[in-house]
């Protein structure tokens, strides 16, 4: 082992939370070492959106960019759920085993983290969704309210360059979005006519994608490829926003390919440093005055549990896991749409987002134009999924219907339960001997009811828009493929039932802080979490070292 100089703060994880925390700390003249287990990506080289076979590629994996995760057995699928069975007309059912397919946790390790492949929706929480226990008797209350978070939303939106509409209902603003909303795509306007027929509000989504030049970054050219990685730098991923801003202060050092494998605890309820594993098998100890964990709601609890259950005085580390509750429905419209053109998720309805907006079920959702996220952007995907069969009839149908697909999706509140958690796999370990994170995910009846509502509403919207020929449905009822995950180190006022306090600090460990989605006491009604993670991390960075 070798020793390093002591930093004011070491931040573990260079994604939405860690990058924002590092920036916030640098703004306060603190020296920051920002570590990430994954690599540095090169957008020009790594994101193959100019290649003819682009459709066959997901966001790239590089050595170290995908964490190894294990899963507890999937939930047994009971009851007939005709609206929720995943599959397409062209390929057939996705799941035939009778149990929920625990496919993958969609997480990126690397400088920029999961923001590298996120769509870039930029949402504030619904204020009422932060008071789920006191208002509705479920989940837990956030120990802060919307008003406390609002100034940090503003800071994050300014740095990222969020483009959004003048108003978003209950999400009041002290200042407008820094950039004007993007125009709706042709397909989004087709869906908008359906929304109008149903009496739904249908508005421009707020997006971390530039509608004009901002801080030297170019505007979006509406290629629709956000989820494959943005080679232009107009999408507001952390690697082109918070990280360069942190580096510009001269007080931040970034190290990729540096997995933290253990946190060291010392006297006086303080942690003293971290151990970092290197490719050659050596272990490096790095001392720090403050430690900020921002590895996401799966890897952060893993690291704490693997460090002799650090900060788990409440027993809540790893519990209250909330996954991504979502639905996507695709249908053919009589007229060509070519919906791959434009920003993914460019239009949204917040009508059912309030926690009491869905009749008979607590917890909200949003409905949106999912055409760009459907991965049905290329000809091959369309031919295989939307058009059944083979031979000449198939070829003729592909020619007839190419470009006619529209997708509508819903994302909803995921409520915590005692069966959903992250713990340490008892059998499997990484190359440093650290147990892997194991995800157990369970849907209770209210979650399934919310999924049914989202599926029905998505179908209604498609039909009202003229797209009545449904050819595929994908839902998290039978398919776990989460990207938004929360709750495993929840924050709260009561140290007996939460891991961190309102500032993101461990209730016991005075210099241990958490700045990622794991601190969310509730998931929100389908809001994309990155902006709230940024805002919470900026707020935490404001408080670090203030009361020691």
């Amino acid at each position, binding site marked *: 082992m070798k020793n390093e100089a002591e930093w004011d703060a070491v931040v573990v994880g260079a994604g939405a939370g860690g990058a924002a925390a590092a920036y916030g700390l640098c703004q306060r003249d603190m020296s920051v070492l920002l570590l990430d287990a994954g690599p540095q990506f090169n957008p020009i080289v790594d994101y193959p*959106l100019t290649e003819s076979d682009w459709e066959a590629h997901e966001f790239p994996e590089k050595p170290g960019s995908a964490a190894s995760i294990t899963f507890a057995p999937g939930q047994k699928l009971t009851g007939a759920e005709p609206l929720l069975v995943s599959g397409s007309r062209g390929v057939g059912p996705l799941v035939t085993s009778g149990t929920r397919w625990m496919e993958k946790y969609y997480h990126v390790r690397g400088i920029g983290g999961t923001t590298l492949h996120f769509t870039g*929706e930029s949402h504030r929480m619904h204020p009422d969704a932060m008071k789920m226990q006191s208002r509705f008797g479920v989940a837990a209350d956030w120990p802060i309210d919307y008003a406390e978070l609002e100034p940090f939303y503003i800071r994050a939106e300014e740095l990222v360059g969020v483009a959004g509409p003048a108003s978003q209902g209950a999400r009041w603003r002290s200042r407008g979005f820094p950039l004007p909303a993007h125009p709706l795509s042709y397909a989004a306007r087709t869906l908008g006519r359906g929304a109008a027929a149903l009496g739904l509000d249908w508005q421009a989504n707020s997006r971390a994608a530039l509608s004009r030049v901002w801080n030297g970054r170019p505007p979006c050219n*509406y290629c629709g490829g956000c989820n494959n990685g943005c080679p232009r730098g107009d999408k507001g991923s952390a690697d082109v926003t918070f990280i360069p801003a942190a580096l510009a202060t001269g007080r931040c050092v970034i190290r990729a390919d540096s997995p933290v494998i253990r946190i060291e605890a010392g006297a006086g309820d303080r942690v003293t440093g971290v151990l970092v594993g290197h490719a050659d098998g050596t272990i490096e100890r790095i001392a720090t005055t403050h430690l900020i964990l921002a590895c996401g709601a799966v890897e952060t609890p893993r690291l704490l549990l693997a460090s002799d259950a650090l900060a788990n005085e409440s027993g809540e580390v790893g519990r209250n896991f909330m996954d991504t509750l*979502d639905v996507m429905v695709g249908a053919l419209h009589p007229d060509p749409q070519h919906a791959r053109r434009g920003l993914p998720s460019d239009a949204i309805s917040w009508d059912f987002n309030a926690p009491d907006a869905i009749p008979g079920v607590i917890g909200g959702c949003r409905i949106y134009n999912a055409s760009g996220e459907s991965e049905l952007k290329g*000809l*091959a*995907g369309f031919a295989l999924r939307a058009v059944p069969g083979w031979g000449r009839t*198939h*070829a003729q149908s592909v020619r007839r219907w190419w470009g006619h697909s529209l997708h509508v999706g819903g994302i909803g509140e995921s409520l915590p339960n005692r069966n959903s958690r992250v713990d340490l796999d008892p059998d499997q370990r990484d190359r440093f001997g650290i147990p892997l994170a194991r995800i157990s995910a369970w849907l209770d009846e209210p979650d399934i009811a919310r999924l049914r509502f989202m599926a029905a509403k998505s179908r209604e919207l498609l039909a009202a828009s003229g797209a009545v020929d449904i050819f595929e449905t994908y839902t998290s009822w039978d398919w776990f493929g989460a990207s938004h995950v929360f709750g495993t180190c929840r924050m709260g006022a009561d140290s007996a039932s939460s891991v961190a306090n309102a500032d993101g600090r461990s209730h016991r460990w005075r210099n241990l802080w958490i700045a990622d989605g794991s601190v969310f006491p509730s998931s929100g009604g389908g809001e994309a979490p990155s902006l709230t993670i940024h805002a919470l991390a900026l707020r935490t960075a404001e408080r670090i070292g203030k009361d020691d």
Partner: protein
Amino acid sequence: MRRRVFIAIFGSALLGGTALLWRNLSLFWRPGFDLHIAETVKALTGLLFPGDELPGAAELGIHDRVLAMAELRDAMADGVGWFDQRAKSQGAANFLALDESARSAAIEAAFASRDEAAKQFVVLLRFYAGLNYYSHPTVKAAFPYTDPPQPEGFADFQDPPR
């Protein structure tokens, strides 16, 4: 959020396929069988994605790309074995000895079959041959809006499709 449906289906399709890997390998993988498999896969691919206004999959060499996929070798061996066995039960030497009508009927039967090897094979073949066929530059050139997303993007994203 969702960004992985296309590839996830790809992965799901392989789940069953991997269960077949190595099974029956010794039964089918004998000298000379490679060529027979290649010819049968070529014939099947040509029927699945035939030429009409555009060149067909066989003409574009799509079968070669499928045959080059090492992870499909055993599924192909199993599947071709099923097609040959079915042809023999109808009095033919093998699948390739059937006329086009009988070959098409065999494909329909494979898609409808309860035999895991047969169904898995045609599902995988449809998927991978289709993926390669509809990604081929010659085919894509016949359809609008099939260029890569970058560097141009879509300046007409607000307009009716051209």
